[in-house]
C-alpha cells in the first residue's frame, strides 16, 4: 500500500485532468453554441471569442460563469445566455442575470425578498424585475456619482455596481440588432429593397427636382431604427461584431452592426457577416437549430478564408476558457494539502509522496494555464493584479517543491499547496471585475520591463510569503502540537532563513528595476509612489530581519515572528496600497478585498502574539507527560 498509494492517487488525478482536455463539442440536433462561442469579435479593445464576452459579462453581473435554471435543473452556459441576449432579448430579460444582495438596494428597487415570495432566492434578479425601478436607479446613481468613491457607503457602492451592470447588459442587448426586432432577415431585405428607389428620390429631392415621395418616406422609416441602433451602440461602446471589409489592409477596423448598416446609404453593399448573423438570429428565435447551424457554418467558412489568424486566436481562447486550468489546479492543491496535513498526523510516507505528486501535477496544470495565457496575450506572465496572483502562487509552489525535495518532511508540500490554493482563490475573486486580458495602457506597454521588473518583484512577493507561511507552520506546530521537534525546528529555521535571503535578493532587484523603468519612462528613478514604497518596505523589512539575525538580536523564534510580519508587509504592498487610491499604480478602491486584507492582517497579528507566548506554554517545549500549567502555576513561576 505504502508504495502504491502515490501511484494510485497520481493516476486517478491525471485521468481526471485529461478528461478535461478534449475540446467542447455541441450535442447533435441542438444549437451549436460552442461553435458560436468561438466566433471572433472585438470587445474591450481586443480580439476575443464571443464565449469570453459572455463569460466575462456574467462574471461581472453575477460572479458566476453560468445561470442555474431551477425549473430545467441545469445551468445556462454563458454563450447560451449571450445568444439569447443578442438574438432573443425578451427571453434574456427574464433570466436572473443580476446579483443584487444589498437589502437597501433591494428595497429601493421594490424587489421581492426571499422571505416574502416563494421561489425567490433574494440575491438574483432579472432585467424585467429591475426595469420598473430604473428611474429610481438613475436618480440615485446621479447623486452618488458626485460623491468621492472612497467615502461612499456600501449601499452606494452597490448602486453604482448594479448601474454599471445594467449598462453592460444594455450594451450586449444592442450589439446585434435593434431592440424589438422580430425578423432581422426580413428587415434587412426590406431595407435593401427600399434603398435604391429611396436614394434616387433623395437625390432628386436634393437637386430640387420632382421625386417619389413614397419611396422617400419608405426609406426613412426603414433606416430610422438602424440609425438609432448605431447611435446607441456608439454611446454604449458596444462590441464590434462585423469584421473589416478589407482585413488585408487594416486588421483592426472592425465595425459595429449599426455603422455597417448605415454604410449602405453611402452605396456600400451590405456586409455578408451581417446576413449570416441575421439568419442565425431568426433561426434562433424560431427554434430551428438546423438553420442556425447552417448559417453559422457558412459564416465560419467565410471567416476562415478572410481572417484566419483572428479565427484561430478566438478558437484558442475559447479552448482556454473551456479548460479552466486554474480551477483544476486549485482542486488538486486542496487535495494535496489534505494529504500533506495527514502525513503530519500519522507520518505515513505514502501520504507525503502522494501529496508531492499531486502538487507536481497541479503545478504542471498551473504552468500550462500560465503559458497559455501568455501566448494568448503575447505578454510576460504578469500584466495586472489578477495575473500577479496567479504568478505569486506559481512561484511559491516552485519554492515549496524545492524545499520538499531537500527536507522531505511535508513542510514544503503544505506551504506549496496552501499558498497555491489561496493565491488562485484570490485570482478568482479578482477576475470578477471583468476581462482579465485587457489591453495594456501606453505607459505599461513594454514587454521588456513587464518581463523583468514585474516578474522579479512578483517572485520577491512570492518568496516573502513562503517564508511567512513556513513561520506560521513553526508557530502553529510549536504552540498547539508536540510535533515541533529539535530536528523540525532546525530545518524550519534553515528554510525560513534561506527563503528570506532569496526574497531579499528578488525584492531588491525587482524594486530597483522598477525604479529604472520609471527613470526610463518618466524621468524619475524614485517617485515615492505608493506601490514603489510598498515594494521598498518589503526590501527594508527583509534586510532588517537578516541584520537582526546576523547581529544575534533574534534567534529561531524571533526569526519566525518577524517572517510572519513579513506576510503583513507583503499583503500591504500587494493590495493595501491599491486601496489608497493615489499614485500611478492604483487600480481603484476595492472594498470586499479590503475586508479580507484586514482579516488576514488580524490573523497574522494574532499569530505574532502566539509566538510571543513564553516557551513553557508551547506544547512542543513542554516535557513529555507534563500537563498544561494552570494560570495560577504560571503566575507563581
Amino acid at each position, binding site marked *: 500500500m505504502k508504495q502504491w498509494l502515490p501511484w494510485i492517487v497520481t493516476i486517478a488525478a491525471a485521468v481526471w485532468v485529461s478528461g478535461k482536455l478534449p475540446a467542447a463539442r455541441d450535442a447533435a440536433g441542438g444549437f451549436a453554441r460552442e461553435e458560436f462561442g468561438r466566433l471572433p469579435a472585438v470587445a474591450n479593445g481586443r480580439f476575443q471569442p464571443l464565449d469570453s464576452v459572455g463569460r466575462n459579462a456574467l462574471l461581472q453581473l453575477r460572479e458566476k460563469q453560468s445561470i442555474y435554471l431551477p425549473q430545467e435543473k441545469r445551468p445556462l452556459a454563458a454563450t447560451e445566455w449571450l445568444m439569447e441576449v443578442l438574438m432573443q432579448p425578451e427571453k434574456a430579460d427574464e433570466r436572473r442575470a443580476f446579483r443584487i444582495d444589498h437589502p437597501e438596494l433591494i428595497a429601493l428597487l421594490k424587489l421581492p425578498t426571499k422571505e416574502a415570495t416563494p421561489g425567490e432566492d433574494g440575491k438574483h434578479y432579472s432585467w424585467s424585475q429591475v426595469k420598473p425601478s430604473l428611474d429610481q436607479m438613475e436618480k440615485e446613481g446621479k447623486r452618488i456619482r458626485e460623491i468621492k468613491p472612497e467615502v461612499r457607503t456600501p449601499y452606494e457602492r452597490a448602486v453604482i455596481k448594479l448601474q454599471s451592470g445594467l449598462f453592460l447588459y444594455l450594451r450586449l442587448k444592442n450589439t446585434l440588432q435593434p431592440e424589438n426586432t422580430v425578423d432581422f432577415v426580413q428587415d434587412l431585405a426590406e431595407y435593401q429593397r427600399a434603398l435604391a428607389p429611396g436614394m434616387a428620390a433623395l437625390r432628386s429631392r436634393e437637386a430640387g427636382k420632382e421625386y417619389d415621395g413614397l419611396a422617400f418616406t419608405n426609406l426613412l422609416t426603414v433606416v430610422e431604427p438602424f440609425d438609432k441602433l448605431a447611435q446607441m451602440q456608439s454611446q454604449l461602446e458596444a462590441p464590434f461584431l462585423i469584421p473589416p471589409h478589407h482585413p488585408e489592409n487594416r486588421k483592426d477596423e472592425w465595425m459595429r452592426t449599426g455603422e455597417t448598416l448605415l454604410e449602405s446609404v453611402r452605396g456600400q453593399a451590405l456586409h455578408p457577416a451581417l446576413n449570416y448573423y441575421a439568419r442565425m438570429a431568426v433561426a434562433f428565435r424560431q427554434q430551428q437549430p438546423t438553420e442556425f447551424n447552417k448559417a453559422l457554418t457558412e459564416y465560419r467558412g467565410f471567416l476562415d478564408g478572410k481572417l484566419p489568424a483572428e479565427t484561430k486566436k478566438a478558437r484558442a481562447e475559447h479552448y482556454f476558457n473551456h479548460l479552466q486550468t486554474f480551477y483544476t489546479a486549485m482542486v488538486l492543491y486542496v487535495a494535496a494539502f489534505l494529504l500533506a496535513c495527514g502525513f503530519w498526523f500519522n507520518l505515513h510516507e505514502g501520504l507525503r509522496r502522494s501529496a508531492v505528486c499531486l502538487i507536481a501535477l497541479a503545478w504542471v496544470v498551473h504552468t500550462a494555464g500560465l503559458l497559455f495565457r501568455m501566448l494568448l496575450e503575447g505578454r510576460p506572465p504578469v500584466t495586472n493584479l489578477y495575473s500577479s496572483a496567479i504568478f505569486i502562487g506559481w512561484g511559491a509552489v516552485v519554492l515549496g517543491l524545492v524545499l520538499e525535495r531537500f527536507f522531505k518532511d511535508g513542510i514544503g508540500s503544505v506551504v506549496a499547496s496552501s499558498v497555491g490554493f489561496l493565491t488562485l482563490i484570490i485570482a478568482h475573486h479578482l477576475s470578477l471585475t471583468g476581462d482579465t486580458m485587457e489591453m495594456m495602457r501606453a505607459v505599461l506597454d513594454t514587454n521588456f520591463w513587464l518581463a523583468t521588473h514585474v516578474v522579479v518583484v512578483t517572485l520577491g512577493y512570492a518568496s516573502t510569503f513562503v517564508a511567512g507561511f513556513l513561520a506560521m507552520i513553526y508557530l502553529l506546530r510549536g504552540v498547539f502540537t508536540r510535533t515541533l521537534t529539535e530536528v523540525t525546528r532546525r530545518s524550519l529555521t534553515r528554510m525560513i532563513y534561506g527563503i528570506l535571503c532569496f526574497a531579499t535578493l528578488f525584492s531588491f532587484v525587482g524594486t530597483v528595476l522598477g525604479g529604472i523603468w520609471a527613470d526610463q519612462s518618466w524621468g524619475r528613478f524614485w517617485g515615492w509612489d505608493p506601490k514603489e514604497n510598498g515594494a521598498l*518596505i518589503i526590501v*527594508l523589512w527583509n534586510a532588517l530581519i537578516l541584520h537582526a539575525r546576523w547581529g544575534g538580536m533574534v534567534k529561531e523564534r524571533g526569526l519566525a515572528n518577524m517572517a510572519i510580519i513579513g506576510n503583513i508587509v507583503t499583503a500591504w504592498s500587494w493590495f493595501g496600497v491599491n486601496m489608497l487610491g493615489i499614485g500611478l499604480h492604483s487600480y481603484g478602491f476595492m472594498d470586499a478585498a479590503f475586508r479580507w486584507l484586514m482579516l488576514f492582517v488580524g490573523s497574522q497579528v494574532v499569530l505574532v502574539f502566539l509566538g510571543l507566548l513564553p516557551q513553557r506554554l508551547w506544547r512542543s517545549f513542554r516535557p513529555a507527560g507534563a500537563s498544561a500549567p494552570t494560570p495560577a502555576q504560571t503566575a507563581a513561576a
Partner: protein
Amino acid sequence: MIQQLIRFLTSLRLTVVCLALGILLVWVGTVAQSDEGLYQAQQRYFKHWWVAGVSLFGYRVPLALPGGYLIGTVLLVNLVASHLARFKFAWKKLGIHITHVGIILLLVGQLTTDLFSRETQMRFAEGETKSYSESAQENELVFLTDASAPDRDEVVAIPESLLRRKGEIRHEKLPFTVRVQQYHVNSQLRRRGPMVDTGPPPATQGAGPGVVLTPVAETRSMDERNLPSAVLELAGAPGTSGTWLVSPLLEPQEFKVGDRSWRMALRWRRVYNPFSMQLLKTTHEVYRGTDIPKNFQSRIRLENPAKRENREVDIYMNNPLRYQGLTFFQYQMGRDEMDQSRGTSTLQVVRNPSWLTPYVGCATVAAGLLYQFLMHLAGFIKRRVA
C-alpha cells in the same frame, strides 16, 4: 568616549533601528499622501531631517519622526564606519562587501538626485516652438524690458518665495522697489460684473480694476496647481503710483518708467534652453472602442543653431529623448482649448546629473547578493548531498 562612539556608529543594532525607522517613515509617508497630497508628503516626510506631526487616514497624530535625510545619512555613516572598522578581506564575505558598496552608491545617488535634479514641463500646441520649459510647482515674478539686441528681452526674475515673505524687494537692475502688499498661495480671478461687484477692486492699476480676486485654499491634489496672486506697489518710479495685481492668469501688464517701457507678470517659473523645439504632430491612439490609451507620441523638430543641428525626433511612452543633459519624456496629451483641431502635448523635462548611479548601484548590489546567495546554496546542497 571615542571608543564608545565608534562602537555605537558601527553597531548592527544601529542598522536595525535605522531600517525599522525607515520602514515606519515610508509607511507613514505613503499613507499621508492621500491627506496631504503626493508632492507635499514627499517634501515633508522624505526630503526633511525631521517630521513633526503626521496625518494618518484623515487624523492628525502628534508624533515626531526622523525624516528621510536623517535616516539616510545615519545609515550611510553606519555603513561606511562599520566597513572601515571591520573590513577584512575574505572570499566568503566578498558578496556582502560588494552589496554594501552598491547600497552606498544608491544612497549617495538618491541624495545627489534630490540636490541637483530639476523637473520642469514643456507644454505646446502643434506648430508652436518653445525654447524653455516651466516648473509645475513654482512661479516667478518677472520684469521685462527691451535689451540691446532686437527681439531679446532683459528679464529680472524674482522667485515666489520672496513674494511669500511680503515686505520690500530691491534689485540692482530695477529702477524701483517692489512692495508686496498682499500675497495668496492660491486664488481665483474673474471679470468684474458692472452692477454685481461693488466692493473695492484688488488693485488700482493695469488689469486690477477689471477683476475680482478670491483667495482659495492651497490645493494638495496631484492634478491641480496653485494659482497664486499678489498685489504690488512699485515705489520710487514716477508714473506707477497705485497698486498692481499679478497672477499667472493675467497677461503681462505694461508700464513706463521714464521713457523705458516695462512689462511685469507672475508666471510659471521658466528654465531656458540654448535650443528650441517645435511640436510638429501629436498622435494619440486608443484601443478600438475603449478609452485605454495605446500610444502617445510627439514629433518634434529640434533646432540648435550653435551646433547647426536641425532634425526631427519622435518622443513617446518609454522612449524619451536624451539631449544635452536633459531628458524629455512624453507626459500628457490633449487638445488646444481655443482650437479643438490642434493637438497639444506636454513633455516632462528632467535634468538629473546623477541618473546613472542607480543603474550602477543596482547592478553592484544584485551581483553581491547573487554571489553570497549562490555560495550559501552551494554549501547547503553540498551538505545535503554529503
